[in-house]
């Protein structure tokens, strides 16, 4: 039989003014298991807490019910007091007789019986309370950042600066990501390389950062504080210690392949660094296109390499490391606009995407920085920009706004005018969206000072005629058909999730929205957290965003990561789900509804007819469980229960409340 003590707080007159304290205390004494009942003016005060502590000791109480303000106010206070008196803090229950009773009812006749009912329910629940322990998790003081674009670099730098070791994993041979592909950045027109390259170098040289490039995360196990990760380091075919980055190998290499960095609009060698400022400045051999790997002959790079760093025998390596936290910053892709037949993308060399056009401005780009037509090398006179190609398109593309296109289009049109003062730009748009510091001013400058013609409307057809492209559209403001004989067309293709985002999400344990962007834990209040504790997201893998937003989010993710890493032990949630494995039938519906991937199948052996039988049942990882209880309802047999809010406890509360009307 439980030994419950009930304590009723007057809260000055806040409760005592409307609830008959004496009656409530007297009624409490009659509740099952209650061996002591008392009241005090302010139970939350030092004196009040002492009354509870002393009563626990004097009456050998094993559980405590406090009739007082909302548990959201002082549950912690009373739990702490109880634990100071030697009781498990979870043996305390609070009956909310202030916010839910004395403050919302006007007279004693009404409020007193309700207060009695609420205290009775709390006592009925408390009788079924079990001592609970929040799991303590040791924290591995090492962070993993996946993705080496500006988001990943910034996150890694911030964490490293706080004094923790960071492994920065990048799939490509160099860090830098999308920002490395940009010429200039809006709205300040800084040269992208000028602000990014120093950060790349800083990351490479930081004593707390390990760059693990040309590598991919293959497996993530464990939980916050202790993630066990397997990383595949792909064979570079170059010894990174010997390589000096002199570049002779790729100068001499005879084999060519389309350059990923140039969006396929230029060639690179089979042994290559993706771009001149690559970090690390160590080439890789693309074995699919290398003559030696294809035909067994060539080896020119090996022969020409002064420090003899080329190693054709190199194998993929698997790194196995433990991390306390993981930040995913894998960025975005560009939609392939060839699904829009009317725009003719892929059928004419002068119809480009925004990112492809961007490369034309870059000195190391396909045209060595000359903005010319890829078809005939002539500078364009008229360039048509088309917005929302695949964005804000329910029927064929993505419903969302890609957010960056309005601004980069304004930037490109402005840069074009600076490079080619004779050129004229036209922008077909649905709306011009320029929310951001200095953005509106920037776009206005492009329109007003740089002679960029903004045409509200849509393009219905683009086709080549003579040596130009006829762009036929409708101006939705005037209703008139517009025809422009353009030299080039630039399509603002939607920013979309990486094609393999879902796969990575599955490996790491993050779920995605319907567009395959990673889901944050809460759209407003937890923008960088995910449902899995200890795993954070930053940058455009969460949704399209520009550089300032990305860097801000990267900093936020770093702070969250540092917050965890700074702890020796993490306190988990005490009210977690638990499985009665003898009863569990192993249907794993609970696993399907768990938002935290906290439930896994596990094989158990059971005695059966003298032998043993193997079967699958569910198991909860209390370090991951956050205690929502959704699993308990999908479980038909009630084999999974929620500590602190068990089926038994809730039913007992129902019974107790219904005893009195």
């Amino acid at each position: 039989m439980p030994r419950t003590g009930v304590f009723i707080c007057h809260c000055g007159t806040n409760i005592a003014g409307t609830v008959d304290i004496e009656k409530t205390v007297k009624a409490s004494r009659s509740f099952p298991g209650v061996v002591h009942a008392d009241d005090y003016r302010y139970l939350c005060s030092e004196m009040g807490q002492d009354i509870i502590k002393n009563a626990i000791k004097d009456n050998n109480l094993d559980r405590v019910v406090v009739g007082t303000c909302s548990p959201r106010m002082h549950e912690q206070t009373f739990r702490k007091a109880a634990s100071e008196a030697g009781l498990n803090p979870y043996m305390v229950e609070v009956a909310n007789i202030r916010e839910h009773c004395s403050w919302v009812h006007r007279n004693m006749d009404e409020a007193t019986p309700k207060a009695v009912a609420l205290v009775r329910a709390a006592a009925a629940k408390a009788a079924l309370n079990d001592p609970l322990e929040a799991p303590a998790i040791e924290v591995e003081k090492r962070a993993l950042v996946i993705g080496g674009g500006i988001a990943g670099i910034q996150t890694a730098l911030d964490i490293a600066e706080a004094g923790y070791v960071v492994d920065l994993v990048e799939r490509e041979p160099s860090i830098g990501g999308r920002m490395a592909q940009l010429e200039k950045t809006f709205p300040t027109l800084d040269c992208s390389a000028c602000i990014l390259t120093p950060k790349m170098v800083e990351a490479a040289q930081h004593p707390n950062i390990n760059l693990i490039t040309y590598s991919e995360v293959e497996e993530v196990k464990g939980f916050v504080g202790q993630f066990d990760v397997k990383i595949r380091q792909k064979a570079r075919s170059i010894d990174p210690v010997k390589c000096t980055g002199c570049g002779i190998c790729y100068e001499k290499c005879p084999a060519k392949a389309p350059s990923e960095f140039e969006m396929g609009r230029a060639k690179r060698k089979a042994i290559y660094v993706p771009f001149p400022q690559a970090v690390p400045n160590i080439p890789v051999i693309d074995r699919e296109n290398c003559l030696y790997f294809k035909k067994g002959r060539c080896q020119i790079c090996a022969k020409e390499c002064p420090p003899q760093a080329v190693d054709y025998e190199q194998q993929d390596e698997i790194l196995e490391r433990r991390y306390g936290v993981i930040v995913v910053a894998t960025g975005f892709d560009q939609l392939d606009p060839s699904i829009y037949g009317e725009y003719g993308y892929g059928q004419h060399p002068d119809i480009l995407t925004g990112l492809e056009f961007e490369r034309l401005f870059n000195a190391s780009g396909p045209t060595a920085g000359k903005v010319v037509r890829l078809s005939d090398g002539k500078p364009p006179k008229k360039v048509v920009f088309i917005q929302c190609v695949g964005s804000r398109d329910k029927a064929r593309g993505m419903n969302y706004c890609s957010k960056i296109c309005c601004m980069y289009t304004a930037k490109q049109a402005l840069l074009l005018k600076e490079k080619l003062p004779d050129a004229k730009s036209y922008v077909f748009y649905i709306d011009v969206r320029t929310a951001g510091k200095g953005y509106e001013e920037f776009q206005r400058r492009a329109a007003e000072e740089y002679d960029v013609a903004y045409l509200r409307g849509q393009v219905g057809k683009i086709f080549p005629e003579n040596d130009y492209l006829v762009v036929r559209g409708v101006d939705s403001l005037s209703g008139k058909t517009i025809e422009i004989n353009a030299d080039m067309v630039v399509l603002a293709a939607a920013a979309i999730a990486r094609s393999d985002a879902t796969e990575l999400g599955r490996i790491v344990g993050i779920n995605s929205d319907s567009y395959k962007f990673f889901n944050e834990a809460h759209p407003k209040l937890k923008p960088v957290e995910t449902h899995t504790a200890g795993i954070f997201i930053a940058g455009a893998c969460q949704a399209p965003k520009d550089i300032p937003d990305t860097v801000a989010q990267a900093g936020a993710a770093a702070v969250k990561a540092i917050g965890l890493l700074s702890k020796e032990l993490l306190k988990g949630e005490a009210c977690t789900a638990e499985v009665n494995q003898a009863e569990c039938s192993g249907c794993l519906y609970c696993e399907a509804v768990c938002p935290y991937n906290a439930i896994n199948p596990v094989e158990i052996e059971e005695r059966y007819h003298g032998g043993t039988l193997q079967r699958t049942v569910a198991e909860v990882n209390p370090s991951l469980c956050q205690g929502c209880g959704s699993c308990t309802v999908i479980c038909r047999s009630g084999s999974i229960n929620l500590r602190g809010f068990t089926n038994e406890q809730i039913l007992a509360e129902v019974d107790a409340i219904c005893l009195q009307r």
Partner: protein
Amino acid sequence: MSTALNETKANWEPLIVAFCCTWCSYAGGDLAGTSRMSYPSNVKVIRVPCSGRMNPMFVLRAFQRGADGVLVAGCHPGDCHYTTGNYHGRRRLSAFKKLVEFAGFEPERFEVRWISSSEGDKFAEEMETITEKIKALGPNRKMRDARWQSVT
């Protein structure tokens, strides 16, 4: 027959059990309190972590034990503290509501509401509304377990 079943409408006061998720609706109830809003004391709240924790059996048990109406209140869809609890809860409790109505319960006897922690006024209004509706319907005898005596 227990006395409760024979009570006349005149001196009868309904009992309404409200299951509130701790993050939104229970907090909304707290706000109604701090703002000194008034609603009928017929409503008594049981705190649950999430509307996704609501097992339909809790509702039926309340009816068995003499509740005249049951309300489940949770965060607005999209605002769940656990992100998906109320989405799952919405499907589960929609199916359940259809079932209890099919069994012959008046639709007003079991309801679900989305009340955020900033909607103290909505909390008070909903408690007022459900109490009025249940008062108009009269005592619930459906599924009422006659052996369960109520104490007055």
